[in-house]
């Protein structure tokens, strides 16, 4: 009997493993199918690009302002977090003593484990009330930036870690300054991976709900934010508020529609990140 045919023979052990592995494959697929099946009736261009009139309790079919609100918050959060993430990672690689490196590593791993709602609470106390920024785009973006910062830092660190020491040393031996090594050796070599990390951070920021609930979003009354100090509506919180309404079928189907769009958005960022990673590996 050949090895190949042996591999395809069923044994009780194999069947058991398959049985245990199946839910992990089936359940997400089923959930996804269910979301899109429920969302199908409302999904059309009008739904995607229509806007609420600003008075109805979300009983308007458009979610465009929520979509833009989510994206705005996520983009702003990442823009705020990027310089700090790069700064921290570069500090770690260039100046930090081994002791500081251990501390930073432990800190960011721990930060990543803190439930985001805790950051939301801090944001409410400090940014919204103490700084009087109010429930606003800015407050939400800063809180979200803190949430995605560990992810960005750890990713940047992992990226820089993949640059061999000899590579930087070869630059040093030519008399390049630290800055030149970073700009001319590290950046060209790792920008694809950095971008991948950024996209993953975007996906993360888009899926966070708790931290922006008290700091950035309102249920209705806003279509477009006029400034960074005005509140926004987002897909995540839109789903949350609509789901609370519970029994109105129209609202529920709008919630499903929003959920489907959000899933697509997050998934597309994730997929794009995977694609870039593949590109970077080649």
């Amino acid at each position: 009997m050949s090895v190949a045919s042996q591999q395809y023979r069923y044994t009780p052990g194999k069947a058991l493993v398959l049985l245990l592995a199946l839910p992990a494959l089936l359940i997400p697929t089923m959930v996804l199918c269910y979301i899109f099946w429920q969302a199908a009736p409302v999904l059309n261009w009008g739904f995607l690009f229509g806007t609420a009139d600003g008075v109805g309790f979300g009983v308007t079919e458009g979610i465009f302002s929520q979509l833009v609100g989510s994206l705005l918050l996520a983009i702003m959060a990442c823009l705020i977090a990027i310089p700090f993430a790069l700064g921290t990672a570069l500090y770690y690689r260039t100046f930090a003593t081994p002791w500081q490196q251990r501390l930073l590593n432990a800190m960011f791993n721990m930060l990543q484990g803190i439930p985001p709602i805790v950051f939301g609470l801090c944001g409410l106390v400090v940014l919204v009330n103490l700084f009087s920024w109010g429930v606003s785009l800015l407050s939400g973006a800063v809180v979200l930036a803190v949430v995605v910062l560990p992810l960005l830092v750890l990713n940047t660190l992992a990226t820089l870690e993949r640059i061999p020491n000899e590579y930087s040393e070869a630059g040093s031996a030519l008399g390049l300054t630290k800055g030149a090594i970073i700009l001319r050796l590290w950046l060209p070599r790792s920008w694809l991976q950095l971008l991948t990390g950024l996209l993953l951070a975007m996906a993360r920021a888009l899926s966070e709900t708790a931290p922006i609930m008290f700091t950035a979003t309102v249920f209705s009354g806003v279509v477009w934010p006029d400034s960074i100090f005005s509140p926004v509506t987002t897909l995540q919180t839109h789903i949350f508020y609509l789901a609370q309404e519970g029994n109105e079928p129209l609202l529920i189907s709008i919630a499903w529609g929003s959920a489907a769009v959000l899933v697509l958005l997050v998934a597309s960022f994730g997929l794009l990140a995977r694609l870039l990673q593949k590109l970077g590996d080649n």
Partner: protein
Amino acid sequence: MVVDLRHKDFPQEASAAPIESLDNQQSVVLTVEKLALSLGGKEILQQVGFSLPASGVTSVIGPSGAGKSSLLRCLNGLETGWSGSVQIDGSDIRQWRGGWDQLRRHVGLIAQKPLVFDASIRANVCFGLHGWRQRRRADELVKTSLQQAALWDEVCERLDAPATTLSVGQQQRLCIARAIAIKPKILLLDEPTASLDPRSKQLIEQSMLQLAQAIPLVCVTHDLEQAQRLKGQVIFMCDGRVIEQAASHQLFNQPQQIETREFLRWNVCDCD
């Protein structure tokens, strides 16, 4: 000259004062005194002392693990945790104007492991130049550097190809070109011809001899014949110490120290 082979207990300090063996006519550009280096709790260099004349090749020979590469890394400032004194033209390299980066431009180092950057061949040669404008207008420099590294004929057709597509021996020569391009005043080469065929080896040696007319060259090599061909002086290192420094014909024909004799005869070293 007769060396008493039974005389095993050489005074170690004898290795620190070998200056009299130098050509006395030549002025000295680099002086190393009592250089010591420990890495990870291990003493890698101890009491290293020697000096370089203003031109000519100085070959460094010695068994593997003797600390030859580490010594070059200290002189170029890649290793900064050493103690002792290294003076170039009378000034201490720790107080070098412009810091270590400037020192590394002054003292070029070609590492033992050739490592090219993810860029074109041309960009690799220009990598150490300051300012993108200089790097752009460096065609002439690229050509002469590659010629000196005996690589021009092989790559002149494909200067914009990625440098990583070159063979290991070609990469080694590219690293030499890259270091020559910044016009260092002292050049340290760590086994520059280790992965080269005899012909390329010969070409590189010719370039080295030519360069050595103007600047001092230090060449670590395991090829004793190469050390002889390069003339100049030879430094024999063993176990983190400079055992002997002498003109090449003298060191190979009449080694003064018993360790050197043993190394030359058996290529083994029993330094302790």
